[in-house]
């Protein structure tokens, strides 16, 4: 964008207007002057090239060049599974899973020998054996939830004279992985019995040794080759379809898997900005349109559109400079990058609150605090929430005490905020509640004044008319 010239005398910028004014000091506004005044309002002829239309300045429509935003990085912690790849005409294709799960493979030198003679008693494991041996993805019908291992050395410390000792290192101690997990025991997922049969016939160390095989366990961050030393499992009557198991895996070899080199770029960013200045009412409001494209944001070749994040905006030259200066403070952090959002957020928030440093600090330093804050739920208020949430199930009636307790408890909180949902009461529910409290008599649409109160109904009704059976049903 070209800026208008500076330090240029006014009569050179507006030559016609100034001449006209000096010539017509006392003159009325003529058509010529009106034309010059009209020229004042359109700068198109004064600058090189046409200025683009700049929309009305608003916090939700700041002027950012999409290409400049590509260079901004939001440093955060991301798991391996976030490095998703995209395809399909530049539209984001997100997978919602957490990446690869653990898998087992049987490493065998003689496939036929491995397949023969393995007979699960009453359980047919031919398909599972085939998967273990032949499928490069491995056998996945188990859930690993915990992996724990300790590496230690074979060490002999010999005490000698003086301060100090002699340490003899003899190599490493056996590396044993303790794996915890879950096996499904369900009608459609017969994992548990198959796994037991596989363990008995194939996976346990003695069987592996007999057939000269090894087991390879692939985790997202390492491959372990070795043998299975033991398996224990437990089942609880509270859960009918899951069996918890523990395995001890003696590892011959532990091969870490490197984080892949991340590449790719964003070529087009469209959508709307996140606007933190939007008022809270109306979750359909502008500020709550979150991007579905946040996350890995990395493309193997080609570009993709970050839908619903940024509107098409243009750069103002100075903005980029200001951002890189403020971002330098945390650019040296250890986090891996996600493209594009922090500069727009800080610009918007600075405009409305005046302080960038605090905002950046809130977003990046320390990230753990933010992550904790996002997931933190007040223990004090959670009991109330549970109390109210049960009303979702009570669609017929809401206990009176629930409504009253909730209000009282809310008022007793300190420094608390939140949202509680409940099924709204129907009119009949309200009447039932009032009836229980004695405020409405069943069968008669007349207000009472509470249980045990002897005041006449007439006194309660505003009309003051005396109560008679004939008028009982008239409000």
């Amino acid at each position, binding site marked *: 964008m070209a800026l208008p010239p500076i330090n240029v005398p006014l009569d050179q910028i507006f030559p016609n207007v100034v001449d006209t004014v000096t010539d017509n000091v006392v003159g009325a506004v003529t058509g010529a002057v009106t034309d010059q005044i009209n020229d004042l309002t359109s700068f198109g002829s004064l600058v090189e090239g046409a200025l683009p239309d700049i929309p009305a300045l608003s916090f939700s429509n700041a002027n950012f060049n999409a290409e400049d935003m590509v260079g901004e990085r939001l440093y955060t912690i991301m798991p391996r599974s976030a490095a998703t790849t995209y395809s399909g005409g530049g539209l984001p294709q997100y997978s919602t899973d957490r990446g690869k799960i653990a898998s087992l493979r049987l490493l065998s030198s003689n496939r036929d020998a491995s397949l023969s003679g393995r007979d699960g008693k009453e359980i047919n494991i031919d398909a599972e054996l085939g998967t273990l041996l032949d499928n490069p993805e491995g056998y996945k019908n188990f859930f690993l939830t915990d992996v724990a291992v300790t590496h230690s050395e074979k060490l002999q410390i010999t005490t000698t004279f003086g301060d100090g000792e002699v340490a003899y290192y003899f190599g490493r101690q056996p590396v044993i992985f303790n794996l915890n997990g879950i096996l499904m025991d369900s009608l459609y997922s017969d994992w548990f019995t198959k796994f037991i049969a596989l363990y008995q016939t194939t996976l346990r160390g003695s069987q592996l040794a007999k057939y000269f095989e090894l087991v390879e366990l692939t985790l997202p961050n390492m491959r372990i080759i070795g043998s299975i030393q033991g398996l224990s499992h437990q089942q609880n009557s509270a859960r009918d379809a899951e069996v918890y198991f523990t395995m001890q895996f003696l590892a011959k070899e532990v091969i870490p898997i490197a984080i892949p080199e991340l590449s790719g770029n964003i070529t087009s960013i469209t959508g709307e900005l996140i606007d933190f200045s939007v008022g809270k009412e109306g979750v359909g409001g502008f500020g709550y349109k979150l991007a579905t494209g946040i996350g890995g944001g990395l493309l193997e070749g080609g570009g993709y559109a970050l839908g619903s994040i940024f509107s098409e905006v243009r750069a103002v030259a100075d903005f980029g400079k200001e951002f890189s200066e403020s971002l330098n403070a945390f650019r040296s952090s250890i986090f891996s990058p996600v493209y594009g959002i922090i500069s727009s957020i800080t610009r918007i928030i600075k405009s409305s609150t005046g302080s960038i440093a605090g905002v950046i600090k809130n977003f990046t330093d320390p990230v753990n605090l933010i992550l904790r804050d996002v997931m933190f739920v007040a223990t004090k208020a959670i009991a109330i929430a549970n109390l109210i949430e049960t009303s979702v199930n009570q669609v017929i009636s809401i206990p009176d005490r629930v409504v009253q307790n909730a209000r009282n408890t809310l*008022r007793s909180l300190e*420094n608390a*905020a*939140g949202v509680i949902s409940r099924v709204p009461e129907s009119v009949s529910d309200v009447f039932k509640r009032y009836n229980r409290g004695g405020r409405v008599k069943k069968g008669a649409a007349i207000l009472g004044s509470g249980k045990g109160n002897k005041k006449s109904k007439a006194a309660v009704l505003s009309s003051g008319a005396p109560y008679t059976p004939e008028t009982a049903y008239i409000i």
Partner: protein
Amino acid sequence: MQKIFARLTPITPTELYLQRVNAQFDAIRKSNRGYDYTPAQFGGLFGQQVVLSSSAVLELTEFEIK
């Protein structure tokens, strides 16, 4: 200072998603201002399923107690 504000909202999938997003942002906002924050839970995951399949209208009570 007490703000207890209840409103009726039809719970559509969009509305539920927006409530979840709202919870995330409000958690950051409120805890930065020193509040303990309770997001709307709609009876947990199962409750949300029930609410969605029955196209329920719920009364959402937003509160902010200083």
